[in-house]
């Protein structure tokens, strides 16, 4: 019984919103279709786009772009972050540069990205890269800097050299924080891919939203938004599950699952 009412509460919020939405559009026509189409229309459009495969093609392209950009970001940011966290002088050189570039929103890079990387995959990847890079970098620096000094000392007492300390202590100890940075970076990358796809790119969910909006198909716009939301949710969930598995030695994280 308590269980049932729990489930009921959990869906009630979503149901209520859908109901209000349907009432205000499909039933009472408070909004023009172009401003807010009824949920039934949106779901039908979603279904038909799923059936003819176009939804999956677009989602697939977005996913590909985000993964590539994310990969490049991780491959550049993690070694750089380790170096900056471990060696203060490197950090001194790069910190000011990073401090100035970091607050520039990825969206503001779109213009230059197009100029520098051209249209298509490369500039989308660059934008995802810009978005994902800083969270990964900063968390890596943070993780490396805040490794428990005592663990490092322990390794030294066993006669470990710097390289072994880095490899066997600093990296594993920092890994959960680096991973968190990657998760955040992935979220921002997902945001950037949408922005990138709104400009000069074929396929992709962002492009789908843009075209829907250019052609006044508000239902397509909402299907695009919903798909982006659900995929973002799924990606985050996968990261979480994987993180709980990889870092099962960490009490903190594994507790959060329960």
């Amino acid at each position, binding site marked *: 019984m308590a269980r049932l009412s729990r489930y009921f509460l959990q869906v009630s919020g979503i149901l209520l919103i859908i109901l209000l939405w349907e009432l205000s559009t499909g039933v009472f026509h408070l909004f*023009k279709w*172009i401003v807010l189409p009824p949920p039934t229309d949106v779901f039908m459009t979603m279904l038909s786009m799923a059936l003819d495969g176009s939804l999956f093609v677009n989602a697939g392209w977005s996913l590909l772009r985000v993964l590539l950009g994310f990969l490049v970001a991780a491959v550049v940011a993690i070694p750089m972050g380790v170096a900056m966290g471990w060696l203060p002088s490197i950090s001194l050189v790069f910190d000011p540069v990073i401090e100035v570039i970091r607050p520039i929103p990825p969206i503001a890079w779109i213009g230059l990205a197009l*100029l520098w990387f051209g249209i298509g995959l490369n500039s989308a990847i660059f934008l995802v890269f810009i978005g994902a890079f800083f969270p990964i970098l900063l968390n890596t620096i943070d993780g490396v800097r805040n490794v428990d000094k005592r663990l490092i000392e322990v390794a030294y007492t066993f006669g470990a050299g710097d390289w072994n300390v880095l490899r066997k202590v600093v990296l594993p100890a920092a890994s959960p924080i680096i991973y968190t940075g990657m998760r955040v970076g992935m979220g921002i990358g997902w945001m950037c891919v949408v922005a990138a796809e709104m400009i000069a790119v*074929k396929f992709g969910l962002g492009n789908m939203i*843009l075209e829907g909006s250019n052609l006044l198909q508000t239902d397509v716009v909402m299907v695009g938004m919903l798909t982006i939301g659900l995929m973002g949710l799924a990606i985050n969930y996968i990261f979480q599950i994987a993180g709980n598995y990889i870092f099962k030695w960490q009490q903190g994280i594994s507790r959060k699952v329960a």
Partner: protein
Amino acid sequence: TSPSPTVTPTSTPLKVKDTVNIGYLITDHDSPFYIAATKIDGAQSYLEKYGMNINITNFSSGPEILTQIAGGKIDIGIAGVPPVILAYDKDPTVRIVTSVHKNGSGLFVKKGSGLAKFTDLKGKKVGTPGPGSIQDILVRELCKSNNLVYGTDVDAVKLPQGQWIGAVDAGTVDAVMGWEPFVTMAEMQGIGETILRSEDILPGHPCDSIVTTKGMIEQYPDSIKAFLRAHRDAVELIKNDPQKAAQIVSSKEWMNNEPAVERASMEHITFLYKPDEEYLAGFDRFSKVLKEELSLTKKVYTRDEIFDLSLVNGI
């Protein structure tokens, strides 16, 4: 991708680019390109017929296309004359190789709003694609001829094309000066009412052109020629079979709307595959406005500087 035999036989090797990158906008101003790139009735497209292998990308504004042309990522683009002048100002390698059309814009208000002539828009908001666009210049011209002050009496608001009809409908702007087919669409959806067409404001004003760079012309003249030939054939088709043309343009691949809308919309666009004197005179006028009224360029550019019609004259 060997050149097709229909091309003039010659002993010197053809200067063709393997894949030509094309940038375009989502508007039926680009109809000739849409038609040239479509396999009509399952046959080769015109572009294929002339041996072109293309890679196409749609943009949401002319300046974006010009930026990419200057940056070398787009080889041939279709864009309005004013952005080309602005681009030439920064990068004198861009060239117009021929015209696409004249006219094709319009001013619409919400149906039943009671707004009937331009002077009714005093104290109101008008949406345009943004400063420096043809539509913006049209609004300026209207202000001048009606003794209104642009910006004060009439507030011009930048608005992306996807918002035009919705914004008029919702009342966030009182009117939109936009390009086709959105003017016609607004009308046919029962939302908008057209009060002025661009041919009534600046009759025969130039609009889109085909743009490339000096380097492209020198390196791959045969690719440009092939594109111009296909362009010419497409313009002919629009003239000879407007019904068919509207059908192609409204297909899912391009405008994705009703053929009837396109049929009506394209009536207001004068396509021409080679610029006439009216078009060129219009260019001179825009060039003057951009320098003298808007101070957006360093000087008034002449048609000889920006146009290179040698190729279109040679097809």
